[in-house]
């Protein structure tokens, strides 16, 4: 017996502040660190979108404060087009990588995956800690890109040694996609293409490494650390979603990393992976100037392939955890089992798998063969099938339930609404013939913001309101939460529905203003409306931040299972102790969504609850519902 006890791997709870809260290997602390990182990053991303809306709605206005903050980018307080473009780039990059990829997976996944499968921690706790700190380093580097490009003093110092910075933008220019060849040329390609772009690539590469470490940990944990009785098909759908997300991250981030290395080599070592010959940029022909050495034979389309091979799975990396949380929360508050559990699992996997074969639909206008475009188109549309399976199963879960409209539930229903509203235009854009005119218009912007941006964020809001009591031992305010939900829900529709119209009219994305275009003049009231809605929606998020931090210290004390939910995390105290189950591994007797079980004493049965008769023979009977 003593040998067994020696082999038992049990960490004592750390006592020092640094080991407990900063360099902690506890998956719960790391999860909260990820969430805090996302909460900080989303502030940066949101303020950038407000700046963009201001420039679009009130072109030519002087904003004295901007002139003070960014004397180079907004001389006299007036935004330059370059300044606007760098806002677009940084908004996209920060939101996609440091918000949509960190909070749903690194945050909630880290916190709840081990608990929901009955493990005391992740498989590799130290690696887990490393993955967070690497990700944070990536965030610091991307912030450095803003300041190196945006501040003339820094640009002259650090910027000059990193490829030269312009000092007139707030970061690199290139969109979050960083299309070659302009992104591969260096300073010669114009403002925002110097040091900031190098830092941008380095930041993405660092982020890739952090995500890979995280994904490795998630997969190993789920495969190897499940507790007694927790068979794969007894896992909560959240775990399936996090697992699929981890697989997607594991297989797609290395491709971006490879592409990023090639891009960086093109920029700093003057190779020609993505740079074609005979390029004429900024009035200089390739090879005619020491700043622009001779290039030949590279393929800019190659970058697009590598980028989108990562980029499309990335979209699912952002939304799958939201789908998992939504399934979980809908079932809990409808007091009904998830409709079609197995179908949900297979649909998650089908979406993940198909996500690897559709990257070409981002490149229909790149001049690809119509035959490959058709293949990509058909594969893209086929994603509609598992998506529809999920949607109908969510509706089926709600159907006939005794729904408890908590804030978490409202956000989960909002997720379904936004997923349908945003996904349906995917069927439009997935068709080559329709994509050709729609490409690079506000229609695309509206589509992906609804489905991957806002829907994912709603999934995260739902998860926050749902799990907050478990994480901090206190309830969030339901009243504030409901106000937050309704204004946000109406707000995002007011922002993105009109954008579809703009796109159909032909308003191009990424233009800093539209005053020069006669055919877009009539749209200006709509642009104003969107901006007002956007600013209102951003302002109401103050309520969320207030609710989050106020409730953390002053909220009503939460019981162990305030929502009467069934999964393992609700068996343990709120907040959970250091090693989750106090050294006693739980035993799982049933599936995760046993609500409204006929004949049971109450309307839910915990996963850890043995059968009434104490029988373990449950292997013979089919479903009875």
């Amino acid at each position, binding site marked *: 017996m003593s040998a067994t006890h*020696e082999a038992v791997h049990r960490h004592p709870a750390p006592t020092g502040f640094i080991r407990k809260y900063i360099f902690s290997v506890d998956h719960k602390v790391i999860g909260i660190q990820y969430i805090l990182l996302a909460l900080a990053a989303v502030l940066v991303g949101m303020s950038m979108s407000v700046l963009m809306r201001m420039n679009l709605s009130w072109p030519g206005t002087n904003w004295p404060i901007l002139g003070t903050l960014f004397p180079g980018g907004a001389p006299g307080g007036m935004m330059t087009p370059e300044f606007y473009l760098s806002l677009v780039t940084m908004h996209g990059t920060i939101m996609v990588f440091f918000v949509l990829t960190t909070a749903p997976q690194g945050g909630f996944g880290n916190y709840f995956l081990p608990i929901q499968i009955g493990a005391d921690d992740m498989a590799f706790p130290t690696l887990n800690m490393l993955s967070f700190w690497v990700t944070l380093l990536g965030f610091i580097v991307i912030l450095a890109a803003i300041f190196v490009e945006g501040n003339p003093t820094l640009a002259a110092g650090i910027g000059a040694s990193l490829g030269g910075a312009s000092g007139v933008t707030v970061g690199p220019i290139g969109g979050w996609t960083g299309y070659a060849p302009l992104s591969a040329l260096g300073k010669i390609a114009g403002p925002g293409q110097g040091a900031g772009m190098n830092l941008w690539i380095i930041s993405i590469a660092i982020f890739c490494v952090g995500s890979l470490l995280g994904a490795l940990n998630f997969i*190993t944990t789920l495969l190897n650390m499940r507790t007694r009785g927790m068979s794969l*098909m007894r896992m909560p759908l959240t775990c399936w979603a996090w697992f699929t997300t981890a697989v997607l991250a*594991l297989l797609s981030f290395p491709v971006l990393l490879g592409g990023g290395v*090639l891009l960086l080599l093109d920029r700093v070592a003057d190779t020609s992976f993505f740079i074609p010959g005979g390029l004429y940029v900024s009035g200089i022909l390739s090879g005619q100037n020491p700043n622009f050495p001779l290039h030949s034979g590279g*393929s800019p389309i190659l970058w697009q392939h590598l980028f989108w091979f990562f980029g499309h799975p990335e979209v699912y990396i952002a939304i799958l955890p939201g789908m998992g949380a939504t399934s979980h929360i809908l079932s809990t508050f409808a007091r009904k089992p998830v409709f079609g559990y197995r179908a949900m699992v297979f649909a998650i996997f089908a979406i993940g798998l198909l996500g690897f074969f559709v990257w070409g639909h981002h490149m229909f206008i790149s001049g690809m063969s119509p035959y490959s475009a058709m293949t990509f188109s058909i594969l893209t549309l086929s994603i509609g099938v598992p998506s529809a399976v999920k949607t109908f199963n969510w509706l089926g879960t709600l159907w006939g339930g005794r729904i408890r409209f908590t804030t978490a539930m409202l956000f989960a229903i909002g997720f379904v609404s936004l997923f349908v509203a945003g996904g349906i235009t995917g069927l439009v854009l997935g068709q080559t013939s329709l994509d050709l005119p729609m490409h690079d218009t506000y229609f695309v912007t509206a589509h992906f913001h609804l489905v991957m941006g806002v829907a994912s964020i709603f999934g995260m809001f739902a998860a926050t309101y749902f799990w907050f009591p478990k994480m901090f031992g206190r309830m969030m305010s339901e009243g504030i939460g409901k106000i937050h939900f309704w204004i946000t829900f109406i707000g995002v529709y007011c922002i993105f529905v009109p954008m579809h119209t703009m796109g159909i009219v032909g308003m191009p994305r990424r233009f800093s203003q539209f005053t020069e275009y006669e055919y877009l003049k009539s749209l200006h009231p709509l642009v104003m409306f969107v901006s007002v809605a956007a600013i209102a929606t951003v302002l109401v998020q103050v309520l969320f931040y207030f609710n989050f931090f106020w409730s953390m210290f002053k909220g009503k004390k939460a019981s162990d299972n305030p929502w009467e939910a069934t999964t393992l995390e609700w068996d343990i105290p709120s907040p959970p102790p250091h090693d989750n189950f106090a050294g006693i591994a739980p035993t799982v007797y049933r599936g995760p969504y046993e609500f409204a*079980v006929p004949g049971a004493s109450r309307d839910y049965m915990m996963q850890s609850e043995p059968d*009434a008769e104490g029988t373990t023979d449950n292997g013979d009977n089919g479903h009875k519902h």
Partner: protein
Amino acid sequence: MATMVTSTRPIIKKSAGGGPKVPGPGGNGSRKPNGDGDLLPDDSRSRRYRIGMWVGLASIFMMFTSLTSAYIVRAASANDWKPLPMPKILLVSTGLILISSVTLELARRRLKAGRQYHYAQFLVLTMALGFGFLFTQLNAWRELARQGVYVTTHPHSSFFYLLTGAHGVHLFGGLLAIIYLCIRSRPRPKADLAAAKSLAAVDALTIYWHFMDGLWLYLFLLLFFWR
């Protein structure tokens, strides 16, 4: 809800929630039961390391896949593709890494058989061979540089430096792990636990090293025998 009830039998079976009809406690979690609801013993270390290693290798595989696709596309995208002649010294490095795979495998088997001393010997030999490989690769770089072939000279040389460099960095990571294991291989208290840990680590490392070996063979063939 009442409309959904199709049976009025008192509930003793799990009836909903999607769990399939699998045996209950004691089975199907990946952790083995320990008899009395006690903390589960961490006897799964070796398995955990191996799963983690395979998962990590999947991502390394994907990175080299992406570089390979870039290589193939780039070779076909323009007429400036001039393959390098193979530096003969690469045959030496290929031989070294192949032998190192064998010696590491031997080390692993010695450790499994409980022969600590021979294990350490083979581990040190593997480390020497690994450094020999990296040294030979560096010599190949130096040889090319002497001939005036640099990263930017032409696309094939860019890929040569990139792929050998990326492989070398990964192999160096493996070497660091070997050095760590060498340091650990001296006798220590709690020998049983230490040996179990070492075995789990060596198992995983061997997988990694064989993968790096195969990866090098693949890159070698891709760079010099694929046209």
